[in-house]
């Protein structure tokens, strides 16, 4: 029996047995299904599949610790892989204003990286996100410590250390890195303009793999929300990331920059419209003579969402974009995506 199938079987047995045994434990579980239909007008092709089925279990372990385990079945090029997403324990009760997390988890950097893909406000991530962090997000095994500075100004610092054996989406065990993945996020929450709040974060991440190749990130993320009852009336979300990669012990390096800005307006009866503008550029593209070439990928996305309840969402995204280098078109994006997501059972609430 394959490892993935075994894990799936264990989870299924766990669910069925837990139905009878979870009383008085506080454990909750849920299944999220994310189905996407993609019509690529450029390639004259379409695909429809359950992109992801995720099982999540969470609850208190004892008076000090909480835990979460999630495993997901992903469709990758027609093949379904069942893999562990997260398995961690955390505690906010050990030291005042500190939260510790230990295990495997999505790194608490930026905005998209820490939210599961089926809960993103758009179907597919910006191009830079795919290139920098993979289709979904970077997860790693390690420790993360968050500290809320004790003042009414709501500043927080998150520091983490991951094993760094792999980075981004990987199905291998990886190899011992020269410098494990280490990261830092400094954030500030504030209320203004009669909105529910704004959160701004500065991010840093560094890793050197076993061959001495270094990946260094700097990023800025921002979110603002205004709600009216159950409806998010205004949502504005933005990230800007810079990546510097050095290869062969610094002999060559690349510098890339990527960003998106997304705005969503919600009507009161479950409908919302949104638009996103993405930008990605490789700043180090050169011709064979070593002359710098201009390179950019720019993309616009228009979204229409219908969310009858918080447990289900229908979404239609149309993306159009173009990638150019030295004035010449490299590729075009012209794509329509339709997404259906639903939740059976419970799901832990997200932080702002």
């Amino acid at each position: 029996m394959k490892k993935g199938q075994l894990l799936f079987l264990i989870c299924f047995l766990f669910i069925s047995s837990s139905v009878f045994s979870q009383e008085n434990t506080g454990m909750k579980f849920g299944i999220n299904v994310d189905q996407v239909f993609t019509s690529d007008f450029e390639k004259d092709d379409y695909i429809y599949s359950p992109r992801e089925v995720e099982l999540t279990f969470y609850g208190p372990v004892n008076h000090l610790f909480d835990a979460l385990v999630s495993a997901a079945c992903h469709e990758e090029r027609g093949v379904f892989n069942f893999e562990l997403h997260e398995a961690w324990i955390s505690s906010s009760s050990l030291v005042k204003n500190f939260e510790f997390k230990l295990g495997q988890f999505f790194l608490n950097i930026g905005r998209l990286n820490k939210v599961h893909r089926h809960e993103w406000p758009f179907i597919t991530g910006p191009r830079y996100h795919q290139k920098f962090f993979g289709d979904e997000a970077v997860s790693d095994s390690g420790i993360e410590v968050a500290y809320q500075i004790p003042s009414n100004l709501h500043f927080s610092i998150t520091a983490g250390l991951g094993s760094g054996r792999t980075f981004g989406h990987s199905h291998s065990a990886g190899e011992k890195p020269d410098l494990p993945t280490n990261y830092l996020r400094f954030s500030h929450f504030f209320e203004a303009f009669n909105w529910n709040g704004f959160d701004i974060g500065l991010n840093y991440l560094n890793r050197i793999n076993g061959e001495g190749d270094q990946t260094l990130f700097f990023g800025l993320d921002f979110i603002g929300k205004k709600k009216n009852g159950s409806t998010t009336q205004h949502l504005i979300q933005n990230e800007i990331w810079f990546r510097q990669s050095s290869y062969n012990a610094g002999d060559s390096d690349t510098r890339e920059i990527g960003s998106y800005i997304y705005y969503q307006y919600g009507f009161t009866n479950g409908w919302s419209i949104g638009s996103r503008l993405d930008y990605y550029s490789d700043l180090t593209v050169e011709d064979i003579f070593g002359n710098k070439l201009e390179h950019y990928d720019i993309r616009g996305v228009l979204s229409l969402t219908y969310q009858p309840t918080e447990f289900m969402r229908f979404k239609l995204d149309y993306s159009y974009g173009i990638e150019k280098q030295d004035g010449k078109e490299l590729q075009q994006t012209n794509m329509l995506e339709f997404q259906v997501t639903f939740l059976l059972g419970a799901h832990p609430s997200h932080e702002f």
Partner: protein
Amino acid sequence: MNFKILPFFLVCFITFNGLFAKDIKVVCSTSDIAWLAKKIGKDKVTVTALSDGNDDPHYLDVTPKSIKLVSEADVLCFVGLELEIGWLPKVIQKSGNPKIKLNQTGYCDCSVYVQVLEKPNGPVDRSMGHVHSGGNPHYQLDPQQMAFAAKAILETLINTKPEEKDYFTKNFELLNEELIKLKANLQEKTKKLGEMKVTQYHKEMSYLIATLELNSFEAVEKVPGVSPSAERLFSFGNECKTNGVTLCLATKHSPINKLKKFNSISQIPFIQERVSLINFQNEDAYEKMMNELVDKIIQAQSEKK
């Protein structure tokens, strides 16, 4: 340095610390519960609310601000009956505050003594829409139920600071009298209207309808929490007309376009009001809000006649 004066400073510190004993920090999920806590605790408590009349307490976000407030609380009071289920458990968990965790001294579920309306008889699932398995949690619109909620707060405050038991009890008794008197006054006001049948958009007004002893006719939302379809608005609007419904009650969060559509079909007026306090620090804020709400009903009814 002369260490002989150290005991003197120590005695001074202990004495002054005792003299300026800290207030109980009470954090409440809604402004209505915060108003109750302030009325009972008065100058012995510092009360903060995580939401006010502009928010819908079903759907608050877990913010660094709410986590910080709860992390510093001695007492956490909440409406209960699963109203805050989507966000409060996470806030409690992230706060790391042992005092306000489940069944600890500072954990105050205000619904424990409330006479709950619309409690489902059998099991509940999502096909029934936004139904709370414990029953309707919007009891803040019945002064009598608010008095029951106050009783739960009183017990928690006494457990937190037993030496102030008499002070809290005296304030609670005054509050109880005030709420009973308010209920009688509101009922007296609406008596003049005679028989009156009302409907509501979402079942957030059930306790008010029961308090004023009005006749209730279903709700515009067929499935709770799900926006009604055009077909539902049409059929229910006509049903209300034939059944003699004279008013539709709705909160500020109800969609205005649906209410207008319902009105154009049925010719039944609607009133759309805030049902939670904006400024809970005002001693008479609750009485004022309830009177304004009832006056609006009377006014709408008089105009209809």
